[in-house]
């Protein structure tokens, strides 16, 4: 992988030790290069990278609010294109809350209108910036502060919203899933998305040490476990052509993934079995 002399996301940011979001953004910006304008939804990323008067962004950056990064990016893209700046990459980052929940409408509009931009959802599967509340991207069985385990609860009782397929249903030219644990696959997709004319969407799984409850050194390991167990599947849909981009040699049981995280620690065999069946069905459907 190409290593730049200087990362386009500067250190000194206030991300937690072991923060996956900063890895996600660093890799994307390095892949896109300096000729890029970045947009961010409110969330961990925005708060940790722009505490006035300091910024970690080495490229032009704009944030407006939580639920509107798709629309803000639409405005930025329109302004750049009308000025003839057709070669500038426009990339918007949103967490799972800012993407699959509160920002869904804004993003849907932006994708449907065909703006030449890339949207990257860094999915850490709950509202981490406000203290680990469940989102539409929280997986089945995860205990969060608003889907807590309890005497009458086993945690989140609904499966994760299938956001990449919702984006694919918009008929946009490029949709992909990715993981920070597979940087070459991710970076390749970012570059492909940037070269794509029209809207592109990457749904990136980003393990969160604080929210998932694992030691800070395990951020990448956790992402790898998700992929190796089939809990997170790496694929792309390039102009309608679906392809799995990484196949684990042998799919490990989901228990290996679940048992290493505090958010799933409470699950009994019955629930683990249910999740295994759900993952098996998903893998079968996508041909993994």
């Amino acid at each position, binding site marked *: 992988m190409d290593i730049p002399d200087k990362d386009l996301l500067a250190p000194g940011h206030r991300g937690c030790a072991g923060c996956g979001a900063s890895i996600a953004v660093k890799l994307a910006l390095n892949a896109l290069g*300096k*000729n*890029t*304008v970045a*947009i961010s939804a409110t969330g961990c990323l*925005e*708060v940790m990278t*722009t*505490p*006035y*008067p300091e*910024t970690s*962004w*080495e*490229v*032009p*950056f*704009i*944030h*407006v*609010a939580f*639920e*509107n990064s*798709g*629309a*803000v*990016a*639409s*405005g*930025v893209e*329109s*302004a*750049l*294109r*009308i*000025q003839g700046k057709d070669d*500038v990459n426009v990339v918007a980052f949103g967490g799972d809350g800012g993407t699959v929940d509160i920002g869904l*409408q*804004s993003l*849907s*509009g*932006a994708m*449907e*209108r065909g703006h030449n931009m890339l949207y990257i959802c860094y999915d850490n599967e709950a509202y981490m910036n406000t203290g680990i509340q469940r989102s539409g991207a929280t997986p089945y069985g995860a205990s969060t502060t608003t889907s807590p385990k309890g005497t009458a609860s086993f945690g989140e009782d609904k499966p994760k919203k299938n956001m990449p397929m919702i984006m694919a249903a918009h008929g946009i030219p490029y949709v992909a899933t990715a993981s920070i644990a597979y940087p070459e696959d991710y970076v390749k997709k970012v570059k492909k998305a940037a070269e794509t004319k029209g809207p592109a969407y990457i749904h990136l799984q980003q393990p969160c040490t604080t929210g998932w409850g694992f030691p800070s050194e395990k951020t990448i390991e956790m992402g790898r476990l998700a992929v190796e167990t089939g809990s997170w599947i790496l694929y792309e849909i390039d102009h309608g052509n679906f392809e799995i981009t990484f196949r684990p040699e042998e799919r490990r049981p989901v228990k290996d993934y679940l048992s290493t995280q505090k958010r799933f620690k409470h699950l009994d065999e019955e629930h683990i079995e249910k999740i295994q069946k759900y993952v098996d069905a998903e893998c079968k459907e996508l041909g993994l």
Partner: protein
Amino acid sequence: MVKEVMTSNKAVAEAVRLAKPQVIPVYPITPQTTISEYLAQYVADEKIDAKYVKVESEHSAISAAVGASGAGVRVFTATSSQGLMLMHEILYAAAGMRVPIVLADANRAISAPLNIWNDQQDSIAQRDAGWLQIYVENAQEALDTTLMAYKVSENPDILLPSMVCLDGFILTHTVEPVEIPDQESVDKFLPPYVPEHAFLDPNEPMSIGNFADPNYYTEARHDMDVAMTKSMEVIQKTCDEFAEIFGRKYGLVEPYKTEDADIIFVAMGSLCSTLRVMVDQLREKGEKVGLLKIRAYRPFPTEAINEAVKNCEKIAVIDKNFSFGIGGALYADMKVKIDKEIYGFIAGLGGRDITPEAILEAYEKTKAPENDVTWIGLKEE
């Protein structure tokens, strides 16, 4: 210069064509809709070289507007009522980010009950967002004010967005003769927007819309207050410059026969046309009455108002909005800032006509007051 008969919505669209914004994100809503249609057609016919962003909501309209203005281009958007309410959060962000967007609001009542007709509750509900708010009386003023709004907002000492408020249906859908300035004169009056404080260019990276902790937030908001105060001077200067080029005079306020008046009506928007006629009629009967039209509601032109009302005994403020337990917003502001005997009247909500009889009722109740605040034209069963 040509003269044409048109609605205020068309007049706003003409002003936008002349101002040459480069990005126009708009979402249709009654009674703003025809603005969104005219502008779409102008772009389709290459009368404006702009990106017309067909957003999926007003929230996205203002969000895209902030993105585009932040990127460094001139931007226009328009909305009304529920649409402005949906924009509410981002209106504050726009002002705080100091992006000089111009927005036309076709003033309309707020739900519930659902009502598509005129009052001014929608823009009044945004009064503390940090936007300049100018209320216009007719189509010509709508056109002229839209042009002037860009010049004021983009002034480096101001850099706050502007809201041009025009009464729904009464102005937006009523035709009047309007003088359309020629492009050359407008270009002279309004040069292209060249942002210095904020833009998005990979050759000069900057971060916009940042996070500010308690060490900085207060100063950021105070700076906005300073700019808002300063905008009074800039508005007046801009009006003078406009008058010099186009011959039409405007100001922060517009006094009519106030000099020797005992009672002065104070109001905003199209209602002032009716009030002017009523002032004349009452004057014919020997009543010493005048009218003070407030054009700039934010910034609040205390000094200009004081100057206009200095000789009067009483003031009758007619508001097309209401703050529960207080009265109209303009009335409340007048009570805070103007040291006079002031009475408030609530009228014209949800499109109820403000008739000459209603105005006479307000006048009589100012002469012989019963309450501080009175709802006029209320139906008794």
